[in-house]
């Protein structure tokens, strides 16, 4: 599993969802959690973060830049394209899951979700991308 000190960026335009995802991240054990209210603000945060962001958990539908816009920007930039990206969204249709995976997300959680489900998805990402 991810190191608890991994800097996590939670991206959602809904304040309650940021609170909820951050709360679950804390329950899972993460200690460094920051938040952004849309994809554009998240992109700025990623560029300025020190220490660098080690995990992005993002909503899909947001103003200014969507979660899909954000993951595409991250994947297109050699400085950040290795950041694991989990999409958390109410968009549950199969074609949307495919679109997100094609854009470069590592895994996908459909709202509503429980803490164990989020943890399971994060473990899957870690095992796939980062486990040595």
């Amino acid at each position, binding site marked *: 599993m991810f190191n608890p000190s991994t800097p996590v960026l939670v991206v959602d335009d*809904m304040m*309650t969802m940021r*609170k909820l995802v951050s709360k679950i991240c804390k329950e899972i054990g993460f200690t460094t959690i920051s938040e952004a209210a849309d994809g554009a603000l998240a992109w700025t945060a990623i560029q300025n973060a020190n220490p660098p962001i080690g995990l992005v958990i993002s909503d899909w539908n947001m103003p200014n830049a969507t979660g899909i816009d954000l993951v595409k920007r991250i994947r297109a930039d050699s400085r950040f394209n290795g950041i694991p990206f989990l999409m958390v969204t109410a968009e549950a249709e199969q074609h949307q899951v495919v679109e997100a995976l094609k854009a470069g997300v590592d895994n996908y959680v459909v709202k509503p979700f429980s803490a164990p489900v989020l943890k399971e998805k994060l473990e899957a990402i870690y095992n796939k991308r980062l486990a040595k």
Partner: protein
Amino acid sequence: MAFDQPETPIQLVKSSKFCTLVLQQNPGPADVDQVVTEIQKLTPDSGPLFIQMQHLIKMEPATQDKLRAVIEDVQKRGIQTSLILIPEPINPILTQAPFSGMRQYQALRQALIDTKIIQPKSLDVDFINPFIFATVKVLKVQAMTDAKPGAPTLRKSEEPLYGDVTGIIGLTSESFSGQIMIQFPSQTYLNIMSKMLGEPFTELTQDIIDGAGELTNMIFGQAKVNLNEKGYGIKTAIPSVVSGKNHNIKSSVETTNVFIPFSSDSGPMAIEVRWTP
């Protein structure tokens, strides 16, 4: 009901309450002749005759004349006739099972409602149930709240919305538009947010008010999957929140409003689905 695509250009499909004359593949006069005898046997007791065809179907004048004579004869004998048009050219794959059945079912069902053979209630239940199931699931998973739906009722648009906080999201498809709303009294909403976010909330603040929109968004997302599998074609939309005592949301067009109250261990609440065809 028989929904299999007929293999001949024109075919009479009978059921216990109505008959459907299915035209396809550009029928000729001889094709009409083949069904005339069967059509002549129809009586008002056979129920209405639906004539189903693609609106770009081609027919020679001789075929049109024969068909017109047959249908006029049916009408003279007091048999109700209705046209079911399939609006665009059919992709060949849609004329084969399983797609042929789905396409004909949707067109036929509306005709059955219009001719009062079935009540629109069955359509409403089909449309409303996914929202009820989604509400129960979302509240259970995301807010640890057990909710139980009560009896749906129709509601007038002038009536104030139920409760103090309403999450709302647009329902848009090619054939209708409307909204899904989730409505909470303030204490119910505070209880739900306290459970969802794991800290006690005692007043409605900006920090938590958008949660109603997010819950609506989740209910919409879950129901959308189910409804789009049935062909409703509902598009993605962004939620918003309205709050205050006796608040209401007015629409510029007349809508059908179905109100479903819920009881729950966080308190009472309701969902309301509004739509205009």
